[in-house]
């Protein structure tokens, strides 16, 4: 670099005029762009949520034909919780277990796709998404035959002694949790992949340069940097799993029923709208509180 270049650069820096941005047109455009989404949320989310909360406080003695009276019956919540406590607890246990399993299966898979797949990366991502091309119901029904009493899986487990000779998989907690794990695995893998793929490989080189062997570098660099993906993946798995009722319906029995089955049944079979609404609100509140606590503990604000 010559003396001439130095002079030019210094001159260029001091002589820079302060930039002003045209604000006025940008301001209204932003709000206009928000409008359709806001309207949609208002009509299809805010209004039904308020309606749901209101329904949960109706007099549960009413009926669809006779109509419901608004009696601010907070007792509905006590009824719902005491009657269906078992299903609530089961939902949380099943969803937590399924989320944990999905993380255990999904992390190595996402890691392999992000770092080891090479030219097969896109193919592998396609395969992760592929199940979405068929219906959720069909896929869950397929598990019914996979886990069937005379199926290959059960026979094999029996022959190696993992399952008792009269044991079965279908209609057990194992089947329901397996179904949940399977169905929500892509929601775990995709955010994990996205956050792992973003990690600069030079950071791992820097780690190795600073006396971290492969495992330590993974523990101290890869894992913390993939936390946003872990948080997003576990939430995307846990939230729908907690409210799911298809898996317990198809792969379980009433003894494996989750709160989703209860809500389904109270709304559509018993037609007890207030209790069904109370169950829904409780589920919503519990999930939101757990998610908030979790996100705060994971402490990812400054990573996402």
């Amino acid at each position, binding site marked *: *670099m*010559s*003396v*001439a270049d*130095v*002079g030019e*650069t*210094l001159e260029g820096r001091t002589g820079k005029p302060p930039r002003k941005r045209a604000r006025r047109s940008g301001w209204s455009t932003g709000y206009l762009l928000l409008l359709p989404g806001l309207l949609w949320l208002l009509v299809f989310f805010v209004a039904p949520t308020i309606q749901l909360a209101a329904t949960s406080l109706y007099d549960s003695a009413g009926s669809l034909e006779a109509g419901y009276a608004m009696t601010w019956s907070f007792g509905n919540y006590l009824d719902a919780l005491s009657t269906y406590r078992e299903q609530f607890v089961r939902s949380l246990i099943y969803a937590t277990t399924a989320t944990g399993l999905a993380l255990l299966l999904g992390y190595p898979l996402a890691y392999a796709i992000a770092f080891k797949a090479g030219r097969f990366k896109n193919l592998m991502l396609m395969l992760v998404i592929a199940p979405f091309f068929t219906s959720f119901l069909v896929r869950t029904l397929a598990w019914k035959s996979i886990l069937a009493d005379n199926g290959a899986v059960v026979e094999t487990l029996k022959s190696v002694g993992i399952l008792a000779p009269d044991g079965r998989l279908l209609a057990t907690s194992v089947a329901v949790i397996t179904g949940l794990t399977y169905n929500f695995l892509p929601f775990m893998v995709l955010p994990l992949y996205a956050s792992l793929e973003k990690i*600069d490989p*030079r*950071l791992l*080189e*820097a*780690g*190795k*340069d*600073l*006396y*971290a*062997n492969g495992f*330590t570098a993974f523990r*101290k*660099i890869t894992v*913390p*940097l993939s*936390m946003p993906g872990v948080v997003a993946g576990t939430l995307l798995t846990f939230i729908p799993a907690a409210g799911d009722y298809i898996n317990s319906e198809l792969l379980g029995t009433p003894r494996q029923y989750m709160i989703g089955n209860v809500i389904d049944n109270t709304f559509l079979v018993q037609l007890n709208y207030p209790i069904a609404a109370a169950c829904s609100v409780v589920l919503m509140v519990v999930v939101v509180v757990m998610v908030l606590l979790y996100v705060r503990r994971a402490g990812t604000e*400054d*990573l996402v």
Partner: protein
Amino acid sequence: MARSTQDSRASGADLSLTSVTKRFGGFTAVDDLDLLVERGQFFALLGPSGCGKTTTLRMVAGLEEPTAGRIDLGGKDITRLRPYKRPVNTVFQNYALFPHLNTFDNVAFGLRRRGVRDVKNQVQEMLDLVELSTYGERRPTQLSGGQQQRVALARALINRPQVLLLDEPLGALDLKLRRQMQIELKRIQTEVGITFVHVTHDQEEAMTMADTIAVMNHGVIEQIGGPMELYDNPATTFVSNFLGQSNLVAGQVLGRTGDELVVEVEGSKLGVPVDRARQTSGRVWVGVRPEKVFLVSGGTSTDEGANVLGEARVIDVSFIGVSTQYLVRMPWGQELTVFEQNTGARERFGVGDSVDLHWTPAHTFALDASQDARAGDERYEGGLATAGVGT
């Protein structure tokens, strides 16, 4: 871990590369390279991008494995040693600071991996050295480029490596900051006494900081020496053009008088000191640095014993304050560059003026005529300038 090497820490060790080759598929990035860096040296590997300098550095760091050859550090073969077992640390090109850790934890990373006690004091000391004492809590994203650079330096230096590797460490900084950091790096190196191996494509940066420079091109070292030696007495056309600028004209060695070669260039006889001639017979490139040349009005050069090339015409004048840069066209069509200091004592010329070029034979050098006279010249390698040098 690197405990076995802890006793030999502190003030560095000789680094030697013997016949090191690195191939990527069919491409040879580093070709049979020999290099000796003595302990405590500030050593620069200088070359254009793609010349193999970063690959060489990465092999020393252990991030690439040589295809052939060996690397010794302090007399110990480290060729196949894992990077985390080498007493070598790197300041990476884009710093590669850990974004999830604050400044303190970034700097402490190496110490903690080695299970060193007293992390707190050592980190604080190191942050003091790079003048970031109060920035321990900040995340890398909350630091400026210059500050990030210093964190990267502290993170590597705190481990007291035997050799510190710097991969274009100032490349991302703006010019003013780069100057500042050059002085800073030199100060720190003198203070800690660790061997520094610095990779850069910026010749000025290399010349400012390094004791010894190895100029690399196409995977081989063209020349090794001190900044002044390389500049004053380049061994190849590449070095003469890459380090500063050179005027190279084709000549024919006629003979020898005393310790000077007599070379004929387009009808003029020029003197070249024998010890500055890389080739002493046949066709040669006669070279001279632009600032060594004086311009006088055509036909008035009378200096006895000076090298003179006459009948040139000024075709461009750039006044840049401390000096004036002239581009002159020789009678045989070649364009040469002349820098005149603006001391006020020198005559000014305008475009179209007829001038003679003269300079002291002692400033002349002669290079192998089989080399490309444009090698390493960014004006040509960038594809910007029109042809001007005859072959």
